[in-house]
């Protein structure tokens, strides 16, 4: 038996992290800690920069969700400069954002998290990836996926200058109106987006019904985390990536709280722990009770599952129909199985596709007035969006010239940090026993955090320099018992 086990790097996620599993004397997992050993310090080095540079500076926090940072930042600047975007600008931003959610969620499904259940059980590291998924899907579907994603990304590029690290949103609007060529290309895309989203959802349900990963976890009540859920909603409490209200529901699905993102400091606080660079947010009511679940826990979940639970309905008809089906199949509402994240993500893909189609039919999208000229500088600006991975808040203070004096970023994966810990710990307890942690078992532990689509780059406001996660097994006295693939 190997005495040292290391999973290094943990793979198929954005960013850099490590899991430590503490074993009891029989070699069964007792505790697990998810560590993020990276820090970039955007909150420090952005101070002194002109506020209007923030949408492009903070887009570099991350390589997979730059669009979320770009728009959260632009919304904070709308507030800071007192410049609400004109109707066309609001629609251009939203259209871009729906395209982004669509392609980013599909990236997760086919490249990152999906290979855990789209490839056959027992597929080792050589086959459990997008290339293995391509084999399962067959040539035609693979070509359809790459073609659609490529065309969506090309349209985003046309709209935003760059698709990774966009440059089009400015305080009070966007840099230019939408041009004919771009609109034509988008119009030819939208119907295919809706039908592809429906097909992927059907594929998911078929795979989930049959795959042991889902079955194992479904039999294991430990994989149900009884936590609060939070997400932005529209005026009718429907799921809205760019909503103006944060709605929080308790583990029973009852509304516990609603607030404007501006007031987040009244309702959320962050806990610093000495063993990770990531901070743990929690609801001030019920308060910090440690890394634990249950009705009294202050921990909450964001992202697809958090948003579906926190909203009363989807915002589009096909997605709402699919939501009812998914809730029936996955034991909701509210949904508490971590693996249900995958399904909720695909509901959002469908909603994004339907919204794209609706926006393209909106005549206001084509208006030429795309910017409200800022009049002055207020002291503070707060902006929020639902990043693919959950609620993202940018909070700036500036002097009277618009030079930043204080910056706070509360990012999606950070909201989920507590829940991620619990999921990893419970997966470890279910799968790591008698000092055993082989590659296939440890991948099941990795699958638990992959369901969240965590972005550890964002969580440490960092960019991966070389992603790395290490799995360290310790006994209850803190002695290292095992690392997988040891150094």
């Amino acid at each position, binding site marked *: 038996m190997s005495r040292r086990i290391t999973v290094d790097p943990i793979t*198929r996620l954005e960013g850099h992290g490590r899991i*430590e599993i503490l074993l009891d004397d029989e070699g069964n997992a007792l505790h697990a800690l998810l560590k993020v*050993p990276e820090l970039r310090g955007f909150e420090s*080095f952005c101070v002194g920069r002109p506020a209007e*540079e923030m949408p492009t*500076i903070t887009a570099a926090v991350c390589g997979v969700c730059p669009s979320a940072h770009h728009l959260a930042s632009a919304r904070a600047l709308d507030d800071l400069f007192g410049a609400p975007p004109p109707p066309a600008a609001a629609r251009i931003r939203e259209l871009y954002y729906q395209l982004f959610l669509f392609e980013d969620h599909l990236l997760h499904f086919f490249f990152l998290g999906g290979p855990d259940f789209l490839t056959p059980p027992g597929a080792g590291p050589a086959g459990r990836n997008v290339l293995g998924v391509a084999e399962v899907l067959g040539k035609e579907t693979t070509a359809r996926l790459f073609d659609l994603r490529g065309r969506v990304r090309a349209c985003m590029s046309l709209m935003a200058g760059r698709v990774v690290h966009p440059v089009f949103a400015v305080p009070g609007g966007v840099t230019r109106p939408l041009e004919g060529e771009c609109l034509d290309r988008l119009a030819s895309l939208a119907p295919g987006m809706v039908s592809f989203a429906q097909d992927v959802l059907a594929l998911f349900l078929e795979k989930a019904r049959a795959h042991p990963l889902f079955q194992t976890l479904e039999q294991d009540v430990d994989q149900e985390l009884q936590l609060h859920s939070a997400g932005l909603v529209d005026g009718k409490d429907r799921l809205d990536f760019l909503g103006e209200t944060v709605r929080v529901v308790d583990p029973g699905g009852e509304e516990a709280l609603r607030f404007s993102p501006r007031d987040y400091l009244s309702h959320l606080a962050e806990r610093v722990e000495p063993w990770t660079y990531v*901070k743990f947010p929690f609801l001030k009511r019920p308060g910090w009770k440690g890394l634990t679940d249950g009705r009294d826990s202050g921990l909450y979940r964001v992202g697809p599952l958090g948003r579906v639970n926190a909203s009363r309905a989807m915002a589009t008809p096909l997605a709402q129909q699919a939501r009812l089906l998914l809730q029936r199949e996955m034991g909701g509402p509210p949904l508490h199985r971590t693996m249900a994240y995958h399904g909720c993500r695909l509901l959002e893909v469908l909603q994004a596709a339907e919204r794209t189609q609706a926006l393209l039919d909106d005549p206001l999208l084509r208006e030429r007035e795309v910017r409200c000229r800022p009049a002055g500088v207020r002291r503070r600006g707060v902006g929020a969006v639902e990043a693919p991975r959950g609620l993202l808040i940018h909070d700036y203070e500036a002097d009277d010239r618009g030079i930043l004096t204080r910056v706070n970023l*509360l990012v999606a994966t950070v909201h989920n940090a507590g829940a991620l810990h619990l999921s990893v710990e419970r997966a470890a307890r279910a799968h790591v026993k008698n000092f055993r942690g082989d590659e296939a078992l440890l991948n099941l532990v990795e699958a638990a955090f992959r369901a969240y689509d965590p972005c550890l780059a964002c969580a440490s406001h960092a960019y991966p*320099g070389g992603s790395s996660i290490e799995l360290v097994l310790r006994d209850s006295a803190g002695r290292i018992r095992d690392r997988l693939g040891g150094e």
Partner: protein
Amino acid sequence: MDLGLPLAELARRVEILLWPVALDFKKSDVEALPDGDLDAAFINGAIRLSEQEEWAHLLRRKARIVVAVGSCAHLGGIPGLANFRSVESLLRTVYHATPGLDSPSADTPARDLPPLLPAVRPLSQVVKVDYVLPGCPPPTDAIAGAFDALLRGALPPPPAVLAPSKALCDTCPLRDTRPERLELRQGRRLAFESPEMGTCFLAQGFLCLGPGTRSGCGETCIRANYPCRGCFGPVEGVPDQGLALLSALASLLAHLPEEEARSVAEGWPDLPGTLYRYGLPASLLNRLGEERER
């Protein structure tokens, strides 16, 4: 990933031994290889932690060719702006001074964590780099082109930046509207005004880093009506992008009396943070700062 279908084609022609965001191979798989066994390692990201330094050395040892991919590996990138601060100040802000902290007096995280290095470094300050794919991010066709050249054995002799040697202004779609000297009496900011489409940003008084930035990006930001922020780094043979840009701006203003030139420049706050947006760790300024500290 944006290569799309050609990715599947590429995967048939090469063996990929490490790609953490998409494949499950681990560090131990790389360590088990003989030194020099990999044809090439494409490395992104700047070096901030001792752990990243170790990764860079490991991959350099195993690979015959090292390619720095993207602005962070090339120049330090936007996270390199942290070099305007000390590590202590970064940690203090994040863990003790941001609003909403439950326990601002709690210990700064450190237990069993790889320490932060004193500064952000580009890859080339840690290991020998053979090629650079510049940009934030490098354009997809440039990445595809590099793979293609690698497979055909058609890469130029190292070291080389795999992009044109000209300045962005020379290939800019707005170049015909660029002035020799700035007629404006005031620098303008995107916060308060919108540039007119189709006219050189500098001619309108908006800061644009085209004069001191390498071409090759396809000018996509410019076409989206957003001025260049310098992600491709300095032009061939120029050691410090910020100084080159400062010099270009100075010559645009040289015809003005000092007072007027000053008032234009005052319209552009935070010149260091803008001219060194992507390149502070690779700059002479950074080196001077470190020498002074020593």
